[in-house]
């Protein structure tokens, strides 16, 4: 008896240390200077926890553990080496993997324990499995939409919310029945299946623009389901890791939905498609001022302070390296160049920062919305590359606009605004942007990468500025 007891203590202590390392890991992530220590702390904690688990006295078979660990690592490596533009779909995929693990463990635990499952345990187990299964398929759907193997457009039909909510309600009813009669083994698969189906139906009506919120929300669900698994297995380590992940996802989804001026329920139950119809209505031909690369280069070269506003269009055009060259040329000339990053620039929270960091743009030049907005009145040129709705002044001063109230970058307060854009076609939300018709705005029509390249050439060629 003493031997297993001692081992048990070792395991518990290792888990405790792992917990501390996990919390430190997230704490160190708060600043770019210490962030990599955070990764190391997390890795150490993970290694410690896995090693300690292998000491568990109940383990009789190591062969399959070893095989699974090796296979998982083989799958994990390519998932860790994807392109930075593909990080959102990779993240969604990893939510799916985490949720799959939780669902499978929950299912096994049910069949091992039934019919002797206490009521509270069964309730938590049901929550684990429902959340896990819907996160699994939901995340796969999100990954498919982000990878563009599935249509990005929201797919809606009449009574959709009613159908979705009914499905969820049925799953909950089954869960309640299982709590009261934990011996009804045959009902359990239905709960899992409904969870899986609900996950798909939940993401079908959600469009590409809402992905940052959805990914964060799925992140939160994945964390909560893992925490529920911790309750079932009576593992404090798992509860804590799940709670950390859950709160992280929750905070990010709140930030994202605030940045889009929409509530959770609105993201989940009101597809953006409905907004599109109403906005496309008022169209009139208005004139815009255009400029060539040469003229743009002259203005940029003469400026003191330039703020570049990148949107996802920049990443789509693969223009970030050209933008870096522009940054270098202007900085060398003594121009103060900053980047204004809207919280929903990109396809997931913080995505734009990663894309710009990859192009070797120093992170202290990347400003979040609240920091940069007061600086626009002192800015000579705001250069918008591939961003649209997040610069639309209608969000500030037109109560009838569908994006009214959405926090935006105040680019219209800069002395000159330049917009690199393929054409006048409206953005994700399908809303016309008044910014383009201002007297101070110059439209630079063309491909982002080519246009920025031309500006750089003009600036380095000399003689024009």
């Amino acid at each position, binding site marked *: 008896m003493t031997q297993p007891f001692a081992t048990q203590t070792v395991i518990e202590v290792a888990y405790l240390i792992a917990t501390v390392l996990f919390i430190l890991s997230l704490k160190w992530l708060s600043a770019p200077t210490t962030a990599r220590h955070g990764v190391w702390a997390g890795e150490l*904690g993970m290694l410690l926890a896995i090693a300690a688990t292998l000491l568990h006295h109940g383990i009789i078979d190591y062969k399959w553990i070893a095989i699974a660990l090796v296979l998982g690592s083989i799958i*994990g490596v390519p998932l860790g080496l994807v392109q930075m533009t593909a990080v959102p779909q990779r993240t969604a995929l990893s939510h799916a*993997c985490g949720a799959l693990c939780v669902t499978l463990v929950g299912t096994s635990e049910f069949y091992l324990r039934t019919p002797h499952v206490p009521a*509270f345990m069964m309730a938590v187990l049901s929550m684990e499995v429902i959340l896990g299964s819907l996160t699994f398929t939901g995340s796969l759907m999100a990954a498919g939409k982000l990878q563009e193997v599935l249509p990005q457009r929201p797919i809606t039909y009449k009574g959709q919310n009613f159908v979705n909510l009914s499905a969820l309600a049925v799953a909950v009813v089954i869960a309640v029945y299982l709590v009261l009669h934990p011996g009804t083994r045959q009902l359990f698969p239905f709960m899992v299946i409904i969870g899986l189906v609900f996950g798909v139906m939940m993401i079908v009506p959600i469009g590409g623009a809402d992905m940052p919120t959805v990914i964060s929300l799925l992140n939160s669900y994945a964390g909560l389901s893992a925490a529920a698994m911790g309750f079932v297995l009576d593992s404090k380590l798992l509860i804590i890791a799940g709670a950390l992940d859950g709160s992280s996802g929750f905070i990010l989804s709140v930030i994202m939905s605030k940045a889009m001026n929409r509530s959770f329920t609105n993201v989940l139950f009101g597809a953006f498609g409905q907004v599109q119809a109403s906005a496309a209505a008022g169209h009139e031909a208005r004139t815009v001022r255009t400029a060539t690369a040469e003229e743009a280069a002259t203005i940029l070269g003469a400026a003191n302070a330039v703020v570049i506003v990148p949107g996802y269009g920049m990443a789509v055009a693969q223009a970030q390296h050209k933008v870096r060259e522009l940054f270098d040329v202007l900085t060398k000339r003594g121009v103060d160049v900053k980047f204004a990053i809207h919280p929903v620039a990109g396809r997931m929270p913080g995505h734009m920062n990663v894309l710009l960091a990859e192009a070797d743009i120093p992170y202290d*030049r990347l400003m979040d919305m609240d920091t940069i907005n007061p600086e626009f009145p002192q800015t000579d040129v705001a250069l918008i590359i591939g961003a649209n709705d997040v610069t639309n002044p209608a969000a500030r001063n037109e109560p009838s606009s569908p994006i009214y109230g959405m926090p935006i970058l105040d680019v219209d307060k800069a002395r000159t605004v330049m917009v690199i854009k393929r054409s006048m076609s409206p953005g994700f939300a399908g809303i016309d942007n008044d910014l383009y018709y201002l007297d101070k705005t110059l439209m630079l029509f063309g491909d982002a990468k080519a246009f920025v390249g031309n500006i750089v050439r003009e600036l380095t060629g000399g003689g024009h500025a």
Partner: protein
Amino acid sequence: MGSDLLTSLYVFVLAGFIGFEVIRRVSPLLHTPLMSLTNALDAIAVVGAIVLVGEHKSKLAAILGTVAVIAATSNVVGGFLITDRMLKMFKASNPKKR
């Protein structure tokens, strides 16, 4: 049993608070690495799956457990790898020699 679950509930609530306070301080600059890191940490669920496979209490549990270990391990490896790759790219304007 009842008190165990209550303790677990305490742990969950307190961990939620810690998570909230710690993560609130993470700069928006690093929100993508934050998500991939919490994802990797969340894959600690692998310990539950490992026990399930190792104990081999039933064939079903062993098979589902094995798939679960594979899924979670891919998250651990992939999650830490990509987080570190991303963080390596974040450089300051005037990098000081360490």
